[in-house]
């Protein structure tokens, strides 16, 4: 049996003893896109931070291809092939677009194929090439989001975590973004997609978990898109 690209096992995250994530089991298989939606404060970002080693899991485990990430620093997790596009982008506004992209190289395990990866990312997001010398702070919000995803992709990750990438984007742009994610998956990247746009995510992802109050309440497939009653109930639970 092949190990899933990413597995969370009974994950709990606490802040100063107060639980924010209360026991989550979740798997992302190789080349899968799994959605995670839920209301504000549900614990979505906390879950991703636990995977990245930004916050330690209080209980439970996180595995990448079967390997436990317990006690790993963020840089170590990144170098194992997990990349996070953080909520709010966290672009380095005083560095140039090209420098931001170069920071993404830090997690690469090998520089083989670097030029090809950069070319691929530039074809997905031409903005990183066209505005390479510009300060990243001068980009529009949507362009910064593209840069944040591009920066994660040049690390050549096996697992891509996205925290609300559609935040602040116009609906048509979101559709383009999702289409791009589908293209990224075609390259064998496994994706865990945290989103506020529940309906779009459910329709798009292979399956989508609904998280509320730190627990998974419901799992929906693309066929369930439009089933607002179930979703509303899960959000309110």
């Amino acid at each position, binding site marked *: 049996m092949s190990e899933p690209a990413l597995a969370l096992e009974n994950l709990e995250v606490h802040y100063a003893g107060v639980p924010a994530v209360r026991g989550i089991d979740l798997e992302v298989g190789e080349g899968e896109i799994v959605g995670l939606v839920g209301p504000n404060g549900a614990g979505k970002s906390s879950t991703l931070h636990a995977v*990245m080693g*930004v916050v330690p899991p209080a209980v439970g485990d996180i595995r990448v291809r079967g390997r436990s990430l317990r006690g790993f*620093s*963020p*840089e170590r997790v*990144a*170098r194992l092939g997990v990349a*996070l596009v*953080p909520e709010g982008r*966290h672009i*380095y506004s*005083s*560095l140039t677009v090209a*420098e931001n992209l*170069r*920071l*993404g*190289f*830090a*997690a*690469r395990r090998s520089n083989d194929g670097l030029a090809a990866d950069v070319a691929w990312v530039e074809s997905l997001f031409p903005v990183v090439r066209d505005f390479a010398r510009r300060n990243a702070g001068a980009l529009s919000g949507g362009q910064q989001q593209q840069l944040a995803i591009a*920066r994660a992709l040049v*690390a050549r990750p096996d697992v891509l975590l996205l925290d609300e990438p559609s935040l602040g984007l116009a609906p048509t742009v979101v559709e383009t973004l999702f289409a791009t994610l589908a293209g990224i998956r075609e390259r064998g990247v496994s994706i865990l997609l945290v989103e506020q746009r529940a309906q779009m995510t459910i329709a798009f992802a292979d399956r989508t978990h609904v998280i509320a109050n730190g627990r998974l309440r419901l799992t929906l497939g693309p066929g369930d898109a439009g089933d607002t009653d179930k979703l509303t109930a899960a959000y309110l639970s």
Partner: protein
Amino acid sequence: MNWGQAIADAISLGALYGLVAVGIGLVFGVMRLINFAYGELITAGAYVLAYTGGWPAPLAILMCVAAVVALALVQERVAFRPLRRMGASPAAMLVATFAVSFLLQAIYLLAFGSRGQIVGTLGQLNSAFTVDGVDIRWILLVTTVTGAILLLATGALLNRTTIGLHVRAAAQDFRTARILGVRANRVIGLSFVVAGVLAAAVSVLYTVSNPLVQPQMGVPITIFALVGVVVGGLDRLWSAALGGFAVGFVYGMFGDLLSSQQTVYLPAVVYGSVILVLLLRPAGLFAPLHARQVERV
């Protein structure tokens, strides 16, 4: 004393304090930590020079650099890294740097005595050359040129290399840098190494004009540089360097132009201005940084 000499003195003292300010600013940038024990690195370098007086100057200087860099790394490894790992608060870290400062001073006192040692390395640079009837000591020229070269080299390291890019990113947003795979220990280690090299350079240059080495020698240097750093602002290394330069320049000017009865008040004025700045901007000392809410590692 005339204006020409005063300006030459002031420029070289400015260069010296610019180096100290950058050394402190670099570590502050990545760790959000003001290392009050920075001056003790300079003192350590001065002691190395005092005890290698009989050696050829290049060898003594090399030894000085090696020892100071090693001590800087020891400071980071033994004191600051464990605290950082434990998640110590910024205040606790700051107090720790005081503790390290006093500890090192006590060690110097026990090991080398209170009477002081004399450095003779590069003493020949105290001889003067004459421009337009103004006598200028060689060390002033050497200090200014060395200071400029080291600042430019530091700038090149930060702006032209990958690890330099990582340091700049870490200084802006350390958590995101780590998420991207930037190794925290490397970036911090590098900033301590560079800070150590700069401190060693200050040891060499400073002791030519001030050859007496005592355990507390580094304290006023640190505090004066911090004044400059406060004035200039730590958000950019260049502003810290300029602040350091300004304080050194002003100090050098007044030190030369005022009579000796007047200069005894100079440190008091400088220290007083620190208190004033702290009072006027209690939270906002490094306001641009706090406004951006950058995490310490």
